[in-house]
């Protein structure tokens, strides 16, 4: 009896530091923003209030951008997760020198910074970039194609390449936990290699697939640098609008309301993706 009580105290004490860090650095600011999102602004001053005006304005003016942000983030998260699974599966299934090389290359790309990657893509896709000068040099096009760079496609390319290693690592971890004997057993019971993937491998990767999707989705939905540097004039994502409310326009309550609306949308998309993965990859 006393042992049980001591044990539970011990676990509380052990969780203490982590809970404190999470509380102070994450939950407290979040709660503060939630409160602020109901304030209003007068002459650049925040005035405590309990009005829904900010949310009404967000829904009226920013429903389009929120939907666009959710769509492009979902696309990027889906593409990244699928590609990451393919790479992780190659590392895991081939093993040996090739697998070690792929894993090493994956880890190495983590060293390059975020901005370095953006500028690398600008060098490839820009007016004077590798692709355009090749196309012009070969006489395939007369003018360099601007749409290569400043477009949603460029945002997708940049973010997918940036996020890929972050998605590969959890998926590789999940694959390594799959019992190789169960794979042989599935083959033995009549499964083709594709059937093995469907029945014995993917269902065990659902948590990692969902994690990878969520990670990529949230990092994309919160990004405002990539759309500004390679997105051109048509690609404005919620990160850009929110940033300008907090910065130039100094309307923190509206920015907070935009943040929360985006957050709720994100949670819904991620929840739906997770439920979908669980449903389609369940044991039948």
């Amino acid at each position: 009896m006393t042992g049980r009580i001591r044990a539970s105290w011990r676990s509380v004490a052990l969780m203490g530091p982590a809970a404190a860090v999470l509380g102070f650095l994450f939950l407290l600011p979040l709660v503060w923003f939630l409160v602020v999102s109901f304030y209003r602004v007068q002459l650049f001053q925040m005035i405590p209030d309990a009005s829904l005006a900010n949310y009404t304005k967000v829904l009226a003016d920013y429903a389009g951008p929120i939907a666009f942000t959710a769509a492009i983030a979902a696309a990027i998260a889906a593409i990244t997760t699928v590609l990451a699974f393919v790479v992780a599966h190659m590392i895991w299934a081939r093993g040996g020198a090739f697998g070690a090389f792929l894993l090493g290359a994956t880890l190495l790309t983590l060293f390059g910074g975020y901005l370095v990657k953006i500028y690398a893509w600008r060098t490839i896709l820009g007016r004077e970039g590798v692709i355009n000068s090749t196309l012009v040099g070969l006489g395939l096009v007369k003018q360099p194609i601007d749409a290569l760079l400043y477009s949603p496609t460029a945002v997708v390319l940049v973010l997918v390449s940036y996020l890929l290693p972050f998605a590969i690592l959890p998926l590789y971890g999940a694959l390594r936990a799959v019992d190789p004997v169960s794979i042989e057993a599935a083959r033995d019971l009549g499964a083709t290699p594709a059937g093995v993937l469907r029945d014995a491998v993917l269902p065990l990767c659902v948590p990692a697939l969902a994690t990878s999707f969520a990670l990529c989705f949230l990092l994309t939905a919160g990004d405002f640098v990539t759309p500004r540097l390679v997105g051109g004039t048509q690609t404005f994502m919620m990160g850009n609008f929110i940033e300008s409310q907090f910065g130039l326009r100094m309307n923190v309550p509206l920015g907070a309301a935009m943040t929360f609306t985006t957050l709720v949308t994100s949670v819904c998309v991620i929840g739906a993706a997770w439920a979908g993965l669980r449903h389609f990859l369940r044991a039948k």
Partner: protein
Amino acid sequence: MMAMKHGPHAFEPVLTGAMAMNGTPLVRLSGLAKDYGEVRAVHPLDLAFEDGDFLAILGPSGCGKTTLLRMLGGFVEPSAGRIEIAGQDVTALAPEKRPTNMVFQGYGLFPHMSVRQNIGYGLRLRGLPRAEVDARVEEMIALVRLEAFAARPPSALSGGQQQRVALARALIMKPKVLLLDEPFAALDLKLRQALQDELRALHRKTGGTFVFVTHDQTEAMALANRIVVMEKGRVVQVGSAEDIYLRPASHFVSTFVGEANFLAATRAGDTVAIAGAFSFHAPGAPGQVEVGIRPERVRLGAAAETAEHRFRGRITDRLFLGAQVQYTVALDGGAAFTAVSGDAALAAGQDIAVGWNGADQWVVAQ
């Protein structure tokens, strides 16, 4: 049943099976071999067995048992030779296309499926109607007595229960050949014996051909009607439990399947002679040989007086084992013999008659 070859000839590939019965055996391996780089895991071997056989592949760790079994299942590509099952050449077929199923040593259960889903997996893949799958799964669950655990995931089962799920999952496919790779090696002795009994009963009930890999000679003898003994990648003897225990084909087999006493001898013509003692008729290759005899066939004292071959000796050690007593006897010729006897009245230091009958001895190359 074929008579086994003795002496050095036993190292040649051995062909067995009641070939006389209408021609083709169920499984026929010809020249089957496997090399891992420089290492020859399985030397070219010929082996045939019949429908309904319970075959044990017996040998020490690393002798190539698993490699041989995995070639049968389609998980290891042979370096040479062919595998025929029911007249069909399956050498190039993928595991899922073979009429075999395997019970793996590490179980290999699907952790995200319940016991029921695990057992029904193969039948669902065959596209059988749901109702039929369910009925056969319930039947199989009853057969391996897992009713109380059917809805649980494998992680909530004990080792013995997991092994029964693995067995049921393979058996439900009604394979022509069921392959089992040391399925009970990880379990404790009592459970192992219980599962051996169950497996024998299942073989009787379901029919079919079982190939069981083990390094434990008592397990092989308890289960199989036919035992294939392997040593360093070669088949060294094939036969019934009696064959390999009472008429082992080599020194290795003699000691691997039980305790053995040996006397050095020479063979010339068809006569084996033990220097200074006796000689007897035993055809085979001439040269240095050994005469073997099991400890429990060695008679001591009064019992030895009526034996065909008699020596004098002195008891140097006595070990009480409960049901039996193990005596170590120094023969007058110098050899040390072990004898196991129900007679506990003999004492160390005693001079005594030692004897055995010609039918209980065998001859192997030295």
